[in-house]
């Protein structure tokens, strides 16, 4: 057997055994090493006797399966089916998952999975829970291809095998052929008259499925559009930068390799693509809202949803949050909502350089204490605190970001919280990585740009 192991921070995080390869016992022990944020990750390959697999202990149960070439964690990917025995270890390596519930950082996990895929061929992005488990694989490989006559040629078939081929057009089966192999066959051609564009293959031996692959298609034509990059056009600028250069569009030269589809078929395919695109264009994105004056309720729903989802941290970043005038009432309302949020750590970042026009940190604190609702809420939630950060300079965009455990989410809002009912603006949903980046960047920026900090809490 050939044994592959992946070791990270001196812990084995994945073990694979491969069986059925020629000259297995000549495999030399070899290593490939890399660093993931200063931590060593090592791939090892060596030959081990079969007993090692038989003597494995500590696993909870094992599963056997035939993995299709399309299964992402099939190490042989599209080259073969894999006969797999999967031994599951419920106690995962501590470098991946600790008993207190903390898991590995996402960047490290991504790098580990990329390393694993590079050396073992297993894509565990959808099954990272397999880390810590042990696998035994052996390949089930068959060679076949199509020819110009639209037949399929199979090679090296043994007596007793049964081959089933479904010739298809998209998902529709046009014709199925079942062939029993009675003697060892070096080459077998399966012909068909139908106009198929993909096919499935199933191969049985002793009534057991030993190979299956679906939706197999072949490239019969390549349409190349070539253009030579020309000299860039330079537009002189005044303030942004000295100039801007852009590539000038050149005429494309078309060349077709292979047999192109029939003109009528090609036109119908193109028409279908256009119509499908039109249907897709209607899809509404959940991550973007365009709000018009008078549509405050739409914005309210998006924002309050975030505020009341917060558990650990909540950050409201709006440089013009405390601007005096008509907006102060709206500001008070938002503060009432924020104090009621479950976030343990609530923060408001705002800017004030003229106290005639906006409240400073102290004034905002007093304003909050003078509001009966806020006061009562703070009294009811005595451990709650709201940090008020007044900055030296303004940030243009407005953000609402929350952190729950190690997951971030948030919104980017095109106008100030105190003018949500009177402007045209967009609200963008920030995914984890974006929200984290915004908050970490602004956090670093705050170190040199925070002017004063006040803490608003219930005073006995």
């Amino acid at each position, binding site marked *: 057997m050939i044994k592959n192991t992946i070791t990270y921070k001196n812990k084995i995080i994945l073990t694979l055994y491969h069986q059925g390869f020629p000259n297995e016992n000549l495999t*030399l022990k070899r290593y490939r090493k890399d660093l993931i944020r200063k931590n060593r990750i090592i791939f090892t390959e060596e030959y081990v006797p079969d007993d090692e697999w038989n003597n494995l202990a500590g696993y909870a149960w094992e599963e056997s399966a035939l993995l299709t070439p399309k299964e992402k964690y099939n190490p042989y990917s599209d080259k073969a089916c894999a006969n797999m025995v999967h031994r599951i270890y419920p106690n995962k390596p501590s470098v991946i998952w600790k008993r207190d519930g903390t898991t590995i950082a996402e960047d490290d996990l991504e790098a580990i999975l990329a390393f694993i895929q*590079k050396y073992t061929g297993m894509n565990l992005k959808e099954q990272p829970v397999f880390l810590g488990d042990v696998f035994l694989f052996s390949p089930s490989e068959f060679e076949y291809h199509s020819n110009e006559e639209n037949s399929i040629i199979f090679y090296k078939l043994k007596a007793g095998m049964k081959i089933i081929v479904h010739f298809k057009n998209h998902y529709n089966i046009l014709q199925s052929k079942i062939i029993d192999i009675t003697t060892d066959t070096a080459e077998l051609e399966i012909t068909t008259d139908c106009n198929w564009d993909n096919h499935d293959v199933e191969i049985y031996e002793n009534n057991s499925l030993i190979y299956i692959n679906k939706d197999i298609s072949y490239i019969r034509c390549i349409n190349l559009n070539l253009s030579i990059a020309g000299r860039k056009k330079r537009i002189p600028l005044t303030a942004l930068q000295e100039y801007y250069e852009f590539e000038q569009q050149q005429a494309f030269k078309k060349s077709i390799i292979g047999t192109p589809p029939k003109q009528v078929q090609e036109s119908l395919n193109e028409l279908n693509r256009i119509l499908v695109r039109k249907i897709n264009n209607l899809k509404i994105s959940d991550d973007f809202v365009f709000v018009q004056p008078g549509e405050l309720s739409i914005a309210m729903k998006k924002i309050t949803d975030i505020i009341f989802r917060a558990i650990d941290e909540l950050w409201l970043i709006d440089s013009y949050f405390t601007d005096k005038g008509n907006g102060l009432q709206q500001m008070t309302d938002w503060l009432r909502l924020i104090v009621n949020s479950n976030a343990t750590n609530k923060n408001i970042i705002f800017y004030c350089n003229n106290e005639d026009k906006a409240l400073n940190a102290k004034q905002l604190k007093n304003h909050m204490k003078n509001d009966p609702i806020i006061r009562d809420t703070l009294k009811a939630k005595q451990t709650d605190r709201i940090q008020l950060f007044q900055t030296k300079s303004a940030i243009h965009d407005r953000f609402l970001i929350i952190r729950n455990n190690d997951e971030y989410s948030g919104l980017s809002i095109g106008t100030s919280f105190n003018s949500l009912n009177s402007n045209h603006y967009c609200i963008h949903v920030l995914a984890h990585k974006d929200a984290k980046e915004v908050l970490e960047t602004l956090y670093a920026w705050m170190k040199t740009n925070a002017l004063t900090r006040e803490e608003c809490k219930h005073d006995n």
Partner: protein
Amino acid sequence: MTTDDIKNLAEALQYGENAKDSKAQINKVLGNKSCVTIIKEFKNLMPELQNKNRNKGLLIVILSILYKNIGLMHKLQKVLTIEGLIPNLYGALCIFFSGKNSTFHLEVNLTDSQFPNRYDYLTRFSGQFAEQQKIQEILYAVKILAMSDKAKFEELAFKDNTRLILLNMTSFQLNEFPSDTLIRRLLRNGDELQANIGFYFAVWDITTDGHDYTQLRLNPNSPYTKTKRQINKNLKCHLETFYNLYNCCSTERKASLLVNYILSERKYPRAFGYWLMESTLQEALIFEITESNKITNLDKLCTIAHLIHDFPCKDNNGVRIKKDKLYVAVLIVLKSFILEKKGIYSWDTSQETVFRNICKVMPQRYLKQLYKLLEKESKNLMVSKLDEMVRFSIYLKDKKHWDICQGMMGVINSHKTK
């Protein structure tokens, strides 16, 4: 002519991309005046111009006249000489080519630094060092200086920070062959590109002799073919002249220039081989082989290996000394090709032939060392059936490297048995 006219002409020349606009504006200022009138008018205007703007203004006028009609060069040269304005032209060209003036210069980004062997750069891009259309007028202005005052022209050529003048001399765009003084200056005091340009001219006659030999071999009966005796006589004479120029270089430069020539031209006079293998140049030659990055493939390494094998290494007293260090240098390059996966990118019959030729001249003990390295390297490559199935992209890269290692091991093995 007024100062505003000069400004307008300068503006017109800057249009660059839009030749029509440039020509229209120049015509508007110069009208149908002859170049003699224009230069005379400019000379009358000179006292009104600030000192620092006089020379620049003259060059702008000259470039505008040439832009209008390039055929006026000879007339222009005459009138500038008569009016005593050649020194002013020289001054203007010096400022222009120095690149120090922010508004009056030529911006050129040469790619020569990508060529460790600068001689290769000269021969590969000969005649293409700038878009002639774009710098035609300025080159003609330089030509006017060359026709009027060769000493000043050569001074300008040496000082030119863009290197365009020298580069265009190598392709004879300026119809000027440098004097021995300039060649010596380039070889001794120039930067790497300048030294190689100097060498290019110093070795010119010898390169021509080489072409004569080729002609003799290919067309012995042609009336234009020289006899072997004639060529040998010429070569002897040219080598003497060349040696006088070449001898002014430092040891390192001598080795660098000869290696450049040998690698680039492949055919070289035997004298070059003897000179390069002199014991005084040995350290410099080892540096050229191992550190200069000039040996980029097996072909080039083969040329060097044969040079080491074919010529004796002698000290100042004419006593033969060992060449081990030089063979080790070749071995270092071969090892670096393997370990850094460079120099040999696939294994085919042509690579095999070249490597066989290297093996023929390399001492056995160094081949054994190389064999051991190849064996070790092969063992670590991912080329098994399992590698092909689970890590195909690594397999593809390693397989190519494995083929190279196996190919080289095969050649070394076959060489051992012979």
